[in-house]
């Protein structure tokens, strides 16, 4: 679908104003480096070698129509290191993503999935979501659409970002190095419009990047490359977006996401069918956001706990046993109990030497003690499968936190510039959609470039890029807004009308299969 906003508004913007919408300022520079040498010309230059940037490159290399395009990727980090990442089967990175089936099928289509270490990914077939205040619950699975004789379809697949990045790099390497330049360990020192080359093309509307290796001496002259299409996959503070003078709006949630890799007790409640895995998310309105436990292989799980900055700091300062007790408590105790436990005095630093899995020591941790006592006075759900298995260990060095923000660029495109992933949008992680939206952008942009390449269009022309923006802008805005509304809805503590209304909504959705099916397909 074309961008409704854009095309509907077009006739009502007078033509001279439309002209002036073109960015007046097109320059980004950390330090000015003018150069008169004619730049090397590329069809697509992607700034940023994260999953989105690498995904675009892999998609372009995989399609016969675009594999002949001359492409470049610029990344500050060492991609060699990312390409040789490895970790043993008992350890998992704390940077994980939940890939929707459509993201996985895109990765399969472009041949990346074959390079993913599938022993390290974990699909799950069910998601339990409930309100910590009212207990209202919703179960997401595909049971309505599956016959009892086949396995339940996957809701989403957990994968470490490092595993995905390594697979993308390996797929790109497999495509050969013809027409491909990867500038690793390289920063973009400036982006400016090019100039008219005497007896040559007129590059005055083309972005020209000055590249500086992070390792070499500054005396070396920067390399100049011109981009037919410059793709900003360079994150929330995108230099490409600054060059294109695209504004971005949004706010900080004043919340942090606490992440950790956890190990679960072997007393996994027996599921039917046996190999079924479940993700759990409990909204904690009094604590500032939901806590989620997402399954990883070998009885491990990934934690994402969105909470206030103060709570996040408190949780990060706890010794492993107390941290584990807090996580178990957060899925089981009432809001009042949890608020109390988050204000308990921190245990003195005489904790046992940090180990990957905590070994029971005779001395009882005060948080553990508190949890055991309070559990005896808390009613538990009738079905044990509605609760996650007990967490019994936290992998050393994986407890970390990051600020939660909302950002949306006012436009994804400008002449010869397109933004993808976090450069275009940053959303609340409560639905685990961030990376999926980024991969959705990349799939749409690769489709657009492919269409342009087979129809004589200039891949950087605004008429080409309009197709990409029309595809993604409304979709991303809708999902970003939905996550924002959920965040705000589940931040109203107590049993007031808001809590009643949201629980009623959740109950209705859970009971009416038609609505739930629509919702799940929408998310997919």
């Amino acid at each position, binding site marked *: *679908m*074309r961008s*409704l906003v854009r*095309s*509907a508004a*077009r*006739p*009502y913007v*007078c*033509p001279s104003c*439309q*002209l002036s919408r073109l960015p007046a300022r097109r320059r980004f520079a950390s330090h000015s480096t003018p150069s008169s040498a004619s730049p090397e*010309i590329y069809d697509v230059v992607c700034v940023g070698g994260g999953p989105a940037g690498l995904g675009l490159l892999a998609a372009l290399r995989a399609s*016969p129509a675009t594999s*002949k395009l001359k492409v470049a990727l610029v990344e500050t980090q060492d991609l060699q290191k990312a390409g040789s990442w490895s970790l043993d089967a008992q350890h998992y990175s704390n940077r994980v993503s939940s890939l929707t089936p459509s993201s996985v099928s895109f990765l399969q289509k472009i041949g990346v999935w074959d390079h993913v270490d599938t022993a390290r990914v974990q699909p799950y077939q069910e998601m339990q979501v409930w309100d910590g205040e009212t207990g209202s619950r919703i179960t997401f699975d595909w049971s309505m659409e599956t016959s009892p004789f086949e396995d339940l379809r996957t809701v989403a697949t957990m994968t470490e970002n490092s595993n995905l990045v390594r697979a993308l790099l390996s797929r790109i390497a497999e495509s050969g190095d013809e027409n491909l330049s990867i500038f690793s360990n390289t920063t973009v020192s400036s982006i400016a419009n090019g100039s008219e080359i005497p007896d*040559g*093309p*007129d*590059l*005055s*509307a*083309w972005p020209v990047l000055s590249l500086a290796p992070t390792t070499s001496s500054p005396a070396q002259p920067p390399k100049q490359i011109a981009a*037919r299409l410059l793709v900003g996959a360079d994150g929330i503070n995108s230099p490409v977006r600054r060059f294109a003078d695209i504004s971005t709006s949004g706010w900080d949630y004043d919340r942090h996401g606490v992440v950790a890799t956890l190990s679960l007790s072997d007393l996994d409640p027996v599921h039917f069918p046996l190999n079924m895995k479940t993700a759990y998310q409990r909204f904690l309105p009094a604590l500032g956001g939901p806590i989620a436990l997402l399954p990883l292989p070998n009885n491990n799980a990934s934690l994402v706990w969105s909470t206030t900055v103060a709570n996040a700091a408190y949780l990060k300062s706890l010794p492993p046993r107390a941290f584990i007790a807090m996580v178990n408590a957060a899925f089981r105790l009432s809001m009042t109990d949890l608020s109390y436990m988050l204000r308990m005095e921190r245990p003195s630093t005489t904790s046992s030497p940090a180990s990957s899995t905590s070994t029971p020591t005779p001395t009882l941790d005060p948080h553990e003690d508190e949890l055991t006592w309070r559990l005896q006075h808390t009613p538990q759900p009738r079905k044990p499968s509605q609760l996650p298995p007990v967490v019994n260990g936290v992998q050393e060095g994986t407890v970390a936190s990051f600020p939660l923000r909302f950002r949306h660029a006012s436009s994804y495109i400008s002449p010869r510039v397109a933004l993808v992933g976090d450069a275009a949008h940053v959303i609340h992680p409560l639905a685990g959609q961030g990376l999926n939206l980024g991969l959705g952008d990349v799939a749409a942009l690769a489709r657009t470039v492919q*269409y342009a390449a*087979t*129809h*004589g*269009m*200039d891949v950087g*022309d*605004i*008429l080409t890029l*309009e197709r990409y923006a029309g595809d993604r802008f409304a979709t991303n805005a809708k999902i970003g807004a939905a996550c924002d509304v959920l965040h705000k809805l589940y931040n109203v503590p107590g049993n007031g009308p808001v809590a009643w209304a949201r629980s009623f909504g959740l109950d209705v959705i859970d009971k009416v299969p038609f609505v739930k099916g629509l919702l799940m397909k929408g998310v997919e």
Partner: protein
Amino acid sequence: MATRRALRTLNHLTTRRAHSTTSVSANELSHFSALASSWWDPQGPSRVLHLMNPLRHDFIASCLSDALPPPPPSTSTSTPTSETNPNTLRYLDIGCGGGIFAESLARSITPPSTPTQTPTPTRAASITAIDPSTTLIQIARDHARQDPTVDAHLRTGRFEYKNCTLEDLIAASSSPSSSPSPSTQKKTYDIVTLFEVIEHIESTPAAGISPQSFLTDCLRLVRPGGWLIGSTIARTFPSWLVNQVIAEAPWPVGVVPRGTHEWQKFVNPEELEGWVQEGLMRGADGRVTRAGAAALEGMRWKCMGVVYFPGFGWKLVPGSESWGNYFWAVRKGV
């Protein structure tokens, strides 16, 4: 910069060449020249035309999949490029204007140096684009410089803009000075394109000029087995409503500048098919040289309607050719 360009534009307008016998009307010429500065503005008056351009490539690809022009005689060229490179077709774009189609086609040309064995959708090897407006040709050349790929094709001659009329081109291609036997050395093309042109041809019976004679001239430049491909608008009540009343309405409703179209000049598919059949039967000198049935042997006629949906763009809609915009193509028998 802007003022310099405007001055140059004015200059070109005043020094426009006058053609003695031509299918180009002065009114049409000045109308499109006046649009020149905004020709390549994606939000400007030519936006609808820009949006249609990819579909022209689709339609050409569908013609080529129906019947490919036969390979050029292998004896003339000693280079083995035709063996390895399947993209050998020579294009002529008549009435290229600011170069919307010509430039996009030039972009699809793969230089012979690249070892490509895969056919491109258009299979283009070269393109010559002509337009009678000096201003528009200058706009087209200036814009082509902004793309290094297209610029390189212009410099090597695989892509060429000529400021001339169709009549000039025919006169030049069959001039006896270049070769002793003009009939065999006449320059012809695998694909001749005529997008949104036929409805702008002035009918001047006194000078013997009509859309029919214009099409006959176009067909003379098509190699046997090649295609003449174009697009135009049918002369029907819906097309009058859409193109004259709605599309040329004042801003903000209209999408096309006032005076772009004259509904009376629109051409229905059946008329067009009749004209090209007659055109094929007329020989090199405008006389009927072959018996009707023989000239039409191996001929193919193809027609496909397109509809513009505001906010969604152009879509191929089979059957709509009888009441609105449509693509048409005729293949000359081998």
